[in-house]
């Protein structure tokens, strides 16, 4: 009998192409997602060395970071953005890489379209030049972000030089309270482990509250693993996973489906497998969360007051808190629910899926966006947009005064025209509240989709449970 293995160990072992005496490994990469920002220099590298893409069919490209989310028929106004998107098309054409262009209904945020198409499958290794590649771990695939040099490496060789990560398991026991979502759960986890707590680890999320999540919710949790420092998050595949994948365009069919399914069922961690680090949380203790500072670890329950520098354990932390409060224009001791907002952004690879939009619609229905608040909803893909429109969600949004837009990364990182002005305060369903992330001087509060909708209609950070 071999020793019990974790889900991570199993995926790692099955992708090992070579292991050097010093422990450095060459691992095989099954799927490679490509977008316009982190790939041009990689394709240029191939061109300069006369190399080709080893497996174009295992590669899928999409423009998402730079694309406009309105007036798309007019093309991209910003010249640099336009060149970058055009360059992606040229590169895909030259190297034979499949591309969902800006006018393709399947276009969207790279981490939304992978699962949507069945490109993302359990047990696979998946990479992308983007730190939120961790999203795909929701399917029990080892998925992580890489730099452009590694993008080039994968394009050329379909492998990566790596050392195995350590195993961490985070178990969330019991049931989440009503009105508390996957986003609140992952923010609470990051608050607990800190933004570097997962460095060097792959986090496996387990427990009843994780199993109870939909695939959309699981993607939200895995997506933000990187905000806790872990390159990858993992959730064991189960019947929900298989049901989500079945019938998707790139998913296996017929006999191959049966064969794949039998394999996928062997993936969950073995009984008795050991982890280098363990953390257990009780779902019942988690409230809706809001970030107050400039790191995702700066998070509190919506019922709490903004902390001050005195709360910190050391000088470095104290000065970091003081700096964050100054940047955010906040005073320690203020209840976070009293903070007024100017803008609401709903979308991103964290919360741009259909379930997120339904959550927003449930709050928005029959209500109006507060005066002086601009609220935008950016669906994660063309297919999410279509589905929301089939369900009539767009009408609810428009009637409530939300701006219903075209798919893309949008104000999550503000590379396109959607950005915050200096001092503008935003309740955002995205993943990073870094200084300047959503626009220079912009102030970001990370929240769940329901919480973002609640802030939109009340004009301040609000416990969504008070509106139901």
């Amino acid at each position: 009998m071999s020793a019990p293995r974790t889900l991570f160990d199993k995926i790692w072992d099955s992708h090992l192409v070579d292991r050097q005496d010093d422990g450095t490994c060459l691992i095989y990469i099954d799927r490679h997602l490509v977008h316009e920002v982190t790939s041009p220099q990689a394709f240029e590298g191939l061109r300069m060395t006369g190399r080709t893409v080893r497996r174009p069919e295992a590669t899928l490209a999409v423009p998402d970071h730079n694309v406009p989310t309105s007036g798309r028929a007019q093309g991209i106004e910003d010249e640099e953005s336009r060149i970058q998107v055009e360059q992606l098309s040229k590169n895909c054409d030259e190297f034979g890489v499949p591309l969902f262009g800006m006018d393709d209904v399947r276009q969207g945020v790279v981490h939304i379209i992978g699962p949507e198409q069945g490109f993302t499958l359990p047990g696979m290794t998946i990479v992308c030049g983007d730190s939120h590649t961790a999203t795909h771990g929701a399917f029990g695939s080892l998925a992580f972000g890489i730099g452009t040099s590694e993008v080039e490496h994968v394009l050329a060789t379909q492998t990566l030089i790596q050392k195995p990560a350590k195993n961490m398991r985070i178990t969330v026991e019991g049931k989440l309270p009503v009105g508390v979502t996957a986003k609140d759960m992952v923010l609470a986890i990051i608050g607990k482990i800190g933004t570097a707590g997962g460095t060097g680890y792959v986090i496996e999320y387990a427990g009843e509250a994780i199993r109870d999540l939909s695939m959309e919710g699981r993607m939200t949790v895995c997506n933000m693993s990187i905000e806790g420092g872990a390159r990858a998050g993992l959730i064991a595949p189960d019947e929900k996973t298989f049901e989500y994948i079945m019938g998707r365009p790139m998913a296996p069919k017929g006999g191959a489906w049966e064969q794949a399914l039998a394999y996928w069922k062997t993936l969950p961690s073995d009984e008795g497998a050991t982890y280098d680090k363990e953390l257990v949380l009780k779902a019942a203790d988690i409230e809706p969360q809001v970030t107050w500072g400039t790191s995702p670890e700066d998070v509190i329950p919506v019922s709490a007051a903004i902390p001050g520098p005195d709360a910190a354990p050391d000088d470095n932390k104290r000065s970091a808190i003081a700096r964050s409060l100054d940047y955010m224009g906040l005073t320690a001791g203020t209840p976070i629910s009293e903070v007024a907002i100017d803008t609401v952004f709903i979308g991103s690879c964290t919360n741009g899926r259909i379930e997120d939009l339904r959550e927003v619609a449930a709050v928005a229905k029959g209500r109006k966006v507060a005066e002086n608040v601009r609220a935008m909803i950016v669906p994660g893909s063309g297919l999410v947009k279509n589905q929301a429109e089939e369900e009539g969600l767009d009408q609810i949004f428009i009637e409530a005064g939300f701006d219903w837009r075209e798919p893309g990364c949008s104000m999550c990182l503000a590379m396109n025209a959607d950005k915050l002005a200096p001092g503008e305060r935003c309740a955002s369903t995205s993943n990073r509240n870094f200084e300047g992330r959503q626009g220079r001087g912009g102030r970001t509060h990370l929240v769940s989709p329901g919480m973002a909708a609640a802030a939109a209609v009340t004009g301040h950070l609000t416990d969504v449970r008070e509106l139901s």
Partner: protein
Amino acid sequence: MDKFDKLTGTAAPLPLVNIDTDMIIPKQFLKTIKRTGLREGLFYELRTDEDGNAKDFVLDQPAYKDAQILVAGDNFGCGSSREHAPWALLDAGIRCIIAPSFADIFYNNCFKNGILPIALPQEQVDLLMDDAGRGANAVVSVDLEAQEIKGPDGGTISFEIDAFRKHCLMNGLDDIGLTMAKGEKIDSFEERRKLSQPWA
């Protein structure tokens, strides 16, 4: 990639924790399709005010304008995977970063660009931060082969580094070339998988 063996130069202090890659290079500089010329965007929002005027950022001060080493706080390089961050640092002449810890993706990206990231215990970083605060008079030497840092007062600090990464950095090796030499192993892996997991 340029080799890295020994480096002697000024170290600039940047005593902030969680310096993220958005801070190292903001999004507006990611629209380039080149690897070079990113110096202009390095720490742009720390360096300039909203009108683009200089804010006397440490790397712009006369004492540090030739700095090749950066001493920073915990969890350096967290956030986005953008390799534009190490490209911008390199373009500004930074070849070595010393901090208590680094985020994984950034740490890895450094090695692909001939930059040496060194993780040290907080107390040792604090000492080097003090040294760096003394400006151009405080010359720090980094010897990768010996895995040692010498401070301006002659004290020596040892550091750990993965043997394979050290080898690649010291010889300026191209990862892709190394892997392509293992082409037969990749071929046979793919052959095996075609049988065991035809859907993959």
